[in-house]
């Protein structure tokens, strides 16, 4: 009944709420956030239901207007898109719950536009994941990008400039992608992914196809913050408001990674991709460099959000490295890391938001051990997320690194294995530094700030999402065998 319409419903929920929020928001500004939470909540439930349906009955293809491809546009809900949709909608739900108090404090009076933009951004992300048409993907890409530029601009003083830089680079990237799509259309005459995938093998040697693949990868690489196209990321994540970053950081780059997965594994197929151009090798190397670069830059940062931004560059490198391995273990590891990193990064950025709310800053050099008494739950969530990022069992982060490591061993790619291991150590450096500051007494000062501080934890609406995400890391860790079992089934070979 409703099942066959699910792909469209998930995306259209956001359209509905993107309209409802301005309508109600002009009348009652306070209603924007609850409506946003409601919208993403409905979408999460639908995503969950759809994934459960997928596990039982298989992929769903939804043809808009009843027009069958290649004439019409379709939404394809298969394992890969279902997984991504589930991850981003659930994480977005928790982040939006958290944003209530942040909105009141960091951008009062602008709640309505903010949450409307959030809905549009999520619409764009979901659309990108679900669509089965290459040009439709471009449209949703631009929708989400424009909304993201807006979300980032609502922030501190330099935010519009960061958003502008992101706009220039991001739109250029999108345009390159569009050109690539144009080349593919010229050669094959269709825009539908499934259709084109059947046709491409015959055109493997056509230079247009080579150029198209390169253009598309570069264009999407900008959005995915693949080294060296990541330049927009640190400033954007740092200067945006805590909620914006928490919304975009766990989700935005993942969706771009999803598009890369789609192109490499489904549109072209692994053998064809390598036959056309050595894309997997090149992006693997770039990802490895990005992993190390991000980790090293993160160590050098004094401000927590900036540190987390560089950490994100590093983490997306893991995902793309897993993609470049092109074997089932790397695939499972990369997708598991999509889930893990989305939850971990969201938790970490929410912690940053909590600290900013209470302390007014998230400058690491000013952290001291009074935090331990003042914000016990926040710091506990931070500890869990930090340990998971470093990759210590039994938390979730260990398992994605384990599968990625197995994937690199499978390919006998020892350099990538070393990169994964070394970066785990580097992660430990910049996370344990904060843990040390917060949980240890400062040996230089005589005043024992810790024992005098009073508990001043953030309110429930902020604490609840942070804690839930932290607890989720335990759950994912213990349940990872089941999750990975599903991921192995999704692998298209």
């Amino acid at each position: 009944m409703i099942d066959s319409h699910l792909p469209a419903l998930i995306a259209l929920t956001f359209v509905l709420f993107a309209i409802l929020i301005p309508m109600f928001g002009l009348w009652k500004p306070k209603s924007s956030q609850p409506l946003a939470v409601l919208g993403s909540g409905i979408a999460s439930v639908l995503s969950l239901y759809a994934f459960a349906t997928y596990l039982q009955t298989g992929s769903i293809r939804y043809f808009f207007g009843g027009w069958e491809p290649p004439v019409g546009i379709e939404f394809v809900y298969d394992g890969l898109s279902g997984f991504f949709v589930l991850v981003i909608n659930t994480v977005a739900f928790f982040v939006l719950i958290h944003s209530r108090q942040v909105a009141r404090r960091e951008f009062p009076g602008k709640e309505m536009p903010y949450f409307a933009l959030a809905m549009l951004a999520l619409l764009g992300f979901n659309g990108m994941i679900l669509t089965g048409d290459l040009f439709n993907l471009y449209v949703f890409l631009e929708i989400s990008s424009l909304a993201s530029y807006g979300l980032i601009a609502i922030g501190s003083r330099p935010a519009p400039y960061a958003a502008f830089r992101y706009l220039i680079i991001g739109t250029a990237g999108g345009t390159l992608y569009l050109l690539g799509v144009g080349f593919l259309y010229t050669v094959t005459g269709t825009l539908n992914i499934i259709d084109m995938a059947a046709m491409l093998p015959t055109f493997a040697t056509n230079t247009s196809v080579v150029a198209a693949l390169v253009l598309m990868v570069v264009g999407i690489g900008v959005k995915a913050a693949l080294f060296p196209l990541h330049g927009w990321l640190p400033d954007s994540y740092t200067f945006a408001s805590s909620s914006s970053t928490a919304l975009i950081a766990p989700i935005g780059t993942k969706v771009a990674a999803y598009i890369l997965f789609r192109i490499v594994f489904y549109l072209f197929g692994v053998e064809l991709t390598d036959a056309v151009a050595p894309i997997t090798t090149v992006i693997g190397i770039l990802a490895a460099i990005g992993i190390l670069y991000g980790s090293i830059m993160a160590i050098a940062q004094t401000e927590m959000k900036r540190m987390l931004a560089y950490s994100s560059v590093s983490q997306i490198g893991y995902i793309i490295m897993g993609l470049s391995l092109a074997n089932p273990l790397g695939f499972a590891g990369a997708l598991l890391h999509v889930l893990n990193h989305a939850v971990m990064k969201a938790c970490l950025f929410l912690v940053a938001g909590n600290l900013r709310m209470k302390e007014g800053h998230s400058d690491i050099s000013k952290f001291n051990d009074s935090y331990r008494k003042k914000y016990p739950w926040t710091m506990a969530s931070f500890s869990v997320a930090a340990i998971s990022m470093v990759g210590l069992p039994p938390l979730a982060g260990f398992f994605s690194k384990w599968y990625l490591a197995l994937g690199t061993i499978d390919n006998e790619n020892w350099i990538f294995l070393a990169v994964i291991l070394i970066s785990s150590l580097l992660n430990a450096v910049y996370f344990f530094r904060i843990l040390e500051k917060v949980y240890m007494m400062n040996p230089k000062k005589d005043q024992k700030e810790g024992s005098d501080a009073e508990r001043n934890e953030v309110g429930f609406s902020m604490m609840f999402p942070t804690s839930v995400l932290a607890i989720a890391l335990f759950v994912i860790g213990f349940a990872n065998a089941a999750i990975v079992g599903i991921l192995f089934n999704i692998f298209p070979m």
Partner: protein
Amino acid sequence: MDLTLVPLLAILSSLAAVPFILWSSSKPNLRETWTIIAALVKFGLVLTLLPSALNGESVTLHLFDLAPGLPFALNADPLGVFFAVIASGLWIFTSFYSIGYVRGHKEHKQTRYYASFAICLSATIGIAFSGNLLTFIVFYELLTLATYPLVIHTESDDAIKAGRKYLSFTLTAGLLLIAAAGMVYYYTGTLDFTPGGVLGDADIPYHMILVMFILFLGGVGVKAGIMPLHGWLPAAMAAPTPVSALLHAVAVVKSGVFAVLRVVGYVFGVDVMGDYGLNEILIVLAGATVILASLIAFAQDNLKRRLAYSTVGHLSYIVLGIALLTPLGIQGGIMHIAAHATMKITLFFCAGAIIVNLHRTEISNLNGIAKVMPWTMGAFVVGSMGLAGIPPINGFFSKFFLISGSLEGDMMIPVIILIVSGLLNAGYFFPIIHRAYFKKGEGLEKYGEASPFMVVPIVITATLSVLFGLFPNLFFNFFDLAAQISASLFNSATP
């Protein structure tokens, strides 16, 4: 009696105590009671596994899958039970000792201390009972995390630096272990610990076996104190003495040598080790460590640091025994796990008592203290004699088997190393004893023996060292267990 759940319960018993410890933080007596109860329960549970271990049986429990095809598996085999008995038994004594030390020293953050201890012991028993490499790695890393708060307990500059050093060594080691485990899984498709090893059947090129061995060596060598990976041990002496006693003389470092034994006997297998000459690498490293550590111990004036280097040396006794790849040698190594544990913990307890009572840490300051702390120093004499290999203390017997094992394998050099090291041991312990008994002390008039909470455990562990020396099978049949474990590694028929 169905024992299948016992391994799991043994691990969880102290974890379950942690919430109670945290909630009773304002009532010290109640809080300490939880620790003691947890220790007794844990020891009791482990003891119930002893009869089946003596029969050569293992108690297996497969919980959920950690990863597809890789279960979270507990396997209380004879070796695991051996280690678990030692760790959990000595924890009881350490808990009592801790009460005396921590209160006498007026340490801060006592709740964190006791809670971390409880988690550490869970992790140690988990390591003992791990059935495959993945479960092992989970508990190994958990041990690292749980010991960190204990290492940096005093939060002084030294302690924080020691903590960083500890973490960097152990986390790196953990990563190397993960890489090694990944490779084993890649080549054999399994991570189970099997007596006789799993690498024998797989067709693996020589250089890959070498790479895996080096990775494993890096992974386990840090905790086992093999030079040059031992650097964290002396630095970790910045921790309170009970921490040094149990964790760094018994739990953490013994986990390291336990891991070496698992790797050599249950992953590579005695045959593979011998065929590829891998044991020779171990013999060289362990032998060098034994001698070098003993020499460096001479130069230390700080009592705990001298004990730390002594530990490094004795850990390599065990590794050396394992590396001999002879039944008697491995048996000697296993026996030394138990012997060194009881002796070293005695010595560290003594050091702690001296620190709390007399506030003295340097050996040159210890003149004449035997008059003031007769029981403590008496126990110290027993422990040092045992470590030097003097009968009838259990240290003599393990050494005897180590030397026999070396002769069994027609290797003279380990024999020489062991004898020289015995002399060096005597050499760096004797001056302490000499000072304590035969030199005149200053400023000692107002002091007496340490509190009973500390002295009683010291005397008990020292007495146990003597008793186990005289009756090797007393209480726990350590001797029989060790012989049986060693023999099981040499049945080359793969199960």
